[in-house]
């Protein structure tokens, strides 16, 4: 079941009604059952992984709280992290590792018989819930939070369906108090949640999926595509991935709001950033802050020497690349981002300036860099990414330019709405709009959603991570 499906359109109101029909003490079970059902609808087998992960971290939390010995605590933490990362490694990176071992062995020994790749299916959402549970155990270990005693609530923290498969990656101290809070049915929550769901669906189905049609056609025939279309394709992909993921997150936040749960914001108009560093403060915020808190700070953050700081940045961004997928393209994508962040630090790029022209120039440079790096992200392998860049320079003939107007209009509409909602999210921004204008906005969005949603529905891009 995905958010942009009829099943979810029926599932969500049903869970909503059941949730408010029952008394508070039963609601955790309603949400838990709904969440497991939501996940089982993908692949029933992988629910075992979530249950295992839940039990391991629940147990680790309790043990950590009861254990005084530092070495035993470290051992418990180590076991918990290794178990979680072990699952992640096996399902996500095993074949990638095998492939690279094969290549190295072949280079060393020509007669080496390569080991065949295993037929492993990646469980949806594994990277997200694994990071969420790891953060819990580390926080208990560091004494930032108390261990959760109630297994049902802890299980719900791990698998709360709105954010289970692609985040936002929530911290225990943000999500758990809200899950436990006794809630009443509040009309504002319905309207707030409904608005976000509508806007999220618009971003995903109208913008991202329509841009995706163009992007797929461009990436499907890089050599035969006109240079201008390749450039447009790369810009479109920047917005496709943004609207796809932002759309997903917005639906997740809207869905959770119906249950009076405020999930964390994941995006703050990242494409308005005037530096790559700023981009990362506004893009996939819950992942970035996770890396900041659990990798960057433990490695020293910006407190040590420039070299130490540089190594921390490199580590964080390469891990970020690896987190996205078991491919060299992701690793290079992360590496290049790290290099740009380091460069900006060295040249003090991020220094505030009131000069509008300079700000504009910085924005152009930043957007161009981020867009160019998405080519690595989108390409199936490094050769394809390099070919894409080479092809941009090789086919500037006028013939073969595909300039369908509709994606540009839709994109323009989105950009305007994104800028207008940069300070407050879409739902909150609408509060100040007169009711007639609000009705007109609903009309336009629903009309576009019903009539202009792409027909070749694509799964959310971030589900593959």
């Amino acid at each position, binding site marked *: 079941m995905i958010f942009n499906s009829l099943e979810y359109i029926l599932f969500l109101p049903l869970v909503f009604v059941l949730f408010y029909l029952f008394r508070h003490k039963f609601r955790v079970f309603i949400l838990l059952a709904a969440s497991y059902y939501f996940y089982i609808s993908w692949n029933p087998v992988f629910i075992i992984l979530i249950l295992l992960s839940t039990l391991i971290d629940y147990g680790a939390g309790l043990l950590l709280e009861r254990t005084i010995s530092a070495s035993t605590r470290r051992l418990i933490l180590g076991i918990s992290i290794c178990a979680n990362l072990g699952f992640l490694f096996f399902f996500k990176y095993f074949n990638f590792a095998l492939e690279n071992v094969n290549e190295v062995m072949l280079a060393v020994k020509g007669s080496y018989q390569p080991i065949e790749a295993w037929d492993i299916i990646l469980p949806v959402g594994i990277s997200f819930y694994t990071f969420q549970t790891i953060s819990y155990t580390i926080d208990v270990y560091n004494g930032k939070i108390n261990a959760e005693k109630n297994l049902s609530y802890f299980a719900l923290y791990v698998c709360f369906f709105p954010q289970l498969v692609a985040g936002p990656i929530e911290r225990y101290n943000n999500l758990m108090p809200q899950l436990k809070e006794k809630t009443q049915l509040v009309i504002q929550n319905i309207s707030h949640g409904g608005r976000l769901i509508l806007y999220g669906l618009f971003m995903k189905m109208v913008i991202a999926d329509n841009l995706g049609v163009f992007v797929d056609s461009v990436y499907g025939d890089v050599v035969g595509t006109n240079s201008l279309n390749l450039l447009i394709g790369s810009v479109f992909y920047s917005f496709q991935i943004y609207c796809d993921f932002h759309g997903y997150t917005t639906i997740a936040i809207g869905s959770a709001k119906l249950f009076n749960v405020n999930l964390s914001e994941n995006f703050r108009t990242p494409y308005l950033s005037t530096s790559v560093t700023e981009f990362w403060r506004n893009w996939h915020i819950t992942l970035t802050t996770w890396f900041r808190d659990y990798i960057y700070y433990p490695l020293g953050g910006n407190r040590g020497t420039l070299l130490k700081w540089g190594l921390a940045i490199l580590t964080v961004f390469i891990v970020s690349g690896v987190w996205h997928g078991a491919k060299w393209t992701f690793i290079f994508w992360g590496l290049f981002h790290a290099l740009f962040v380091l460069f900006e630090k060295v040249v003090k790029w991020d220094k505030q300036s009131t000069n509008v022209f300079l700000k504009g120039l910085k924005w152009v440079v930043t957007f161009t860099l981020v867009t160019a790096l998405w080519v690595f992200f989108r390409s199936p392998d490094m050769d394809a990414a390099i070919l894409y860049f080479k092809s941009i320079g090789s086919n500037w003939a006028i013939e073969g330019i595909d300039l369908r107007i509709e994606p540009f209009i839709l994109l323009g509409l989105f950009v305007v709405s994104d800028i207008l909602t940069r300070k407050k999210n879409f739902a909150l921004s609408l509060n100040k709009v007169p009711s007639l204008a609000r009705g007109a906005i609903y*009309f336009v969005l629903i009309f576009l959603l019903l*009539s*202009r949603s792409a027909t070749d529905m694509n799964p959310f891009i971030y589900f593959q991570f």
Partner: protein
Amino acid sequence: MKIVKYTAIRMILAVVFLFTMNQLYLNTFWKDDINKHADTLENLWVVPLESDAIYFGESSNFHIQEGDSIKHRISYALDSLLPSISIATVDNAGLHAGTYLSLVKNIPKEMNLKFVVITVNYRSFSANWRYAPFENYLAKSALMLEPSLPILNKYMISLKQYDYQSDEERNVQMKLAWKNEKFAIPNFDYDNVIEWDSAMAWHTWLEVNPNLTEENIPLASHYIKNFAFNLDTVNNERIEDLNAIVSIANNKDYKVIFNLLGENFEEAERLVGSELIYLMEKNRSLLVSYYADKGVIMVDNFYQIPDSCFVDRNWPTEHYNYQGKKIVAENIKKAIIENELHN
């Protein structure tokens, strides 16, 4: 109470919004979407309202043989043969009863039809066609043509609320059907398509059948995959579609003619053998009697088209030269005249 009022106001607004949006959609994007996802409907739009009959067909209706001096459609030939009845044509490549059903649902209410002629392709009942990748497009078209608000149909397509399956999934289903469907042909070693086809593919039949060569084995294999099946009148999707067409026609009070296309039984027997003809005949007679019992006018061209009329020689199709098309048209004409005489 507050929540009831809140919900009621929004429900009323939603209904008003929906109908307004639907009108807006009909006047803006709908025609483009029909062109993209269900272009056959455009043929129905141009059908004159005063027509007496509509001929629903697939490529057999319009495919021509290179060198044919007359390039008319079957439906056009039929129209010429029956000057007292005006026959309109709605056709497109690859259609089957599922799409005809959607089209029949969309016949304008103002039309005062006497007949609808539905092309029935024997192969369309086979697993090879039922699980073909093209089914996605046909299922999408069918949803687009549903008699509901067009804007909702469009959104349901975006939500993939039609029988969408990946090519791999359809391939798996096809192979399962080939494996699980048992033929029980008397004194015959092979009990399903997989066994039969494998025996052929492994060339064991080259020694048995003098008509087979290395070159025409693939064609023989296509004949097995397309023609060898047990027609299941309970579960076959195409039967369900045809039944629904009969039901609509009965309600709207026009006659249905099922035009069962001719197959190249000569080539089938030459390349594969009499066992295949045995199965084909079993299915044909079941189909004809099943629909005759339902009051459908059955035009049985099954054995009527000689091998020389078939255009394609590397795939079993129902593409005929003009002589073959004329035979079909003549047979439909006879059926219509007989029916008129009876009434």
